[in-house]
């Protein structure tokens, strides 16, 4: 199955009006999303997450690069199949919840009974029934966020783009939002959302893109077992010569814990050599474990240098 969204060399820069210096907001971002995927874009504030999403939906014009939706350039017509929730969604405070959804449904071109049915279904699904006739200005942050999701889902989008959907929500609200995003996959929707809260991304995403300093640094798969960065081998009953041989293939000196010695091995070849060495010396292998860095460790590895620059 081909990708639903393909972002190629997406770059955005602006010129400082006072110094005329070029400021790069996003630099050469490449990304491909599979159908029904949930993709998280994580990064600290000011990393370029919102710029990326605005460029994808066409609120900003790219300085360079293209955005393809189902193989074609993402234009006004293609946006009929895309739902977008802006960061901290703002609505017309003089409208009620139902009027708001009806207005946006008209913008999607829904008419007559289809529009009314769709609005009613979303009011029910997002638990907005009780607030149906409430003016938008009276709603809590969580309810506004639910209206934001509802308006983005009006046209049964194939791609849903959510900018910080869990921002400002209480724990119950966050849990509900996570369930909602997971549920969207079931109805065939691909979801891209931005967040700077790692557990939120880990809880729902198939893959996560770490963005920092306007660059997409790394894409991490959260599905299945990723290739480990290293292996931790713990052994005992080792002779001094065998231990020295073991340390030669390891990433550093062996650490002792009582009679047990532990070494970090860089890959499968090193593991094979180390295991042969232990067996040749009549040593005992206590454990052999893959070492996979957590998402947080990966995230901090990219973000820390940026923070130092700040």
């Amino acid at each position, binding site marked *: 199955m081909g990708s639903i969204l393909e972002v190629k060399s997406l770059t955005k820069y*602006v010129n400082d009006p006072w110094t005329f210096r070029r400021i790069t907001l996003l630099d050469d971002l490449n990304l491909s999303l599979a159908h029904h995927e949930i993709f998280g874009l994580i990064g600290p504030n000011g990393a370029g997450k919102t710029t990326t999403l*605005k460029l994808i*939906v*066409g*609120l*900003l*014009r790219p300085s360079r690069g293209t955005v393809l939706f189902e193989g074609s350039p993402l234009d*006004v*017509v*293609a*946006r*009929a199949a*895309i739902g*977008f929730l*802006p960061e*901290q*969604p*703002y*609505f*017309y405070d*003089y*409208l009620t919840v139902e009027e708001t959804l009806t*207005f*946006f449904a*008209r*913008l*999607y*071109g829904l*008419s007559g009974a289809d529009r009314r049915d769709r609005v009613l279904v979303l009011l029910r699904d997002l638990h907005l029934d009780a607030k149906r006739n409430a003016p938008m200005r009276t709603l809590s942050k969580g309810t506004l966020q639910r209206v934001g999701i509802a*308006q983005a889902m009006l046209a049964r989008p194939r791609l849903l783009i959510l900018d910080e959907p869990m921002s400002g929500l209480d724990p119950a609200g966050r849990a509900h939002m996570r369930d909602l995003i997971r549920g969207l996959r079931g109805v065939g929707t691909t979801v891209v959302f931005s967040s700077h809260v790692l557990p939120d991304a880990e809880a729902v995403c198939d893959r996560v893109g770490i963005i920092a300093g306007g660059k997409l640094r790394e894409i991490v798969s959260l599905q299945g077992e990723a290739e480990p960065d290293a292996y931790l081998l713990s052994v005992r009953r080792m002779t001094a010569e065998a231990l020295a041989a073991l340390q030669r293939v390891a990433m550093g000196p062996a650490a002792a814990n009582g009679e047990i010695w532990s070494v970090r091995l860089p890959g499968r070849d090193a593991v094979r050599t180390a295991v042969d060495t232990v067996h040749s010396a009549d040593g005992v292998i206590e454990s052999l474990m893959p070492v996979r860095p957590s998402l947080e460790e990966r995230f901090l590895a990219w973000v820390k240098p940026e923070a130092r620059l700040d």
Partner: protein
Amino acid sequence: MRTFAIALNTAREAIRNKLLYTILFFAVVVVAVAALFGSVSIGDPLKFVKDFSLMSVSLFGVAIAVMLGVSMLHKEIGRKTIYNILAKPVARWEFIVGKFLGLVATLTLVVALMTAALLAIVAAFEGRIDWTLALGAQMTALELMILVAVALFVSAVVVTPTIAGLVTAAAFVAGRCAGYLEYFGGPEQPLALRGIARGLYWVLPHLDRLNVANQVAYGDPVAASYVLTVAVYAFAYTGILLLLAIFMFSRRELV
């Protein structure tokens, strides 16, 4: 459909704006006061009432047009409600045209209400409805349509609503005085002044041509061909300004 939805929502926003009712209330009060003063004035009291009232309808209409025309676009961008609209299958021209139609519909309603009050007051004095006053109001509506287009164009270019408001108000004053440019563009004037005057003559909206309050108030006939000509002019000028507004807005970044 989309343009209509935006127009409907724009009209709804204007109609639910309390400031609109405040201005409308004052307009009706001013027309009533004019009637009161007119009844004790020297000369033909009805002419005074009609002239003053038509001027009030025009000036209050202009105040509303500038206020709504300038604030609508800036509010959409400032409050970021525009993100929810332009991320949908809505072209930027549809957004501008929708805003324009909504504002014009609102102003037409406002002028109609003020004119209805004026007709009722004059009918109380004269014992009959003077429908020629409605012609003056129609011309005011055309004038306001041009001003809304000016406001949208300026808002699409200028970032600050205050500056946009001042420029639109200045365009109204200059447009009402556009007739004087013919004098300054005459052959007896210095070349530089003539050039500037002729340039402005073509650029500024000739709102003075749309002001027929005096003729209407004093019972002078207004030729149908004249009304048709200025109406065509008003629609053409508005159309060109809207195209320029769409061009400028389509280039604008929504950071």
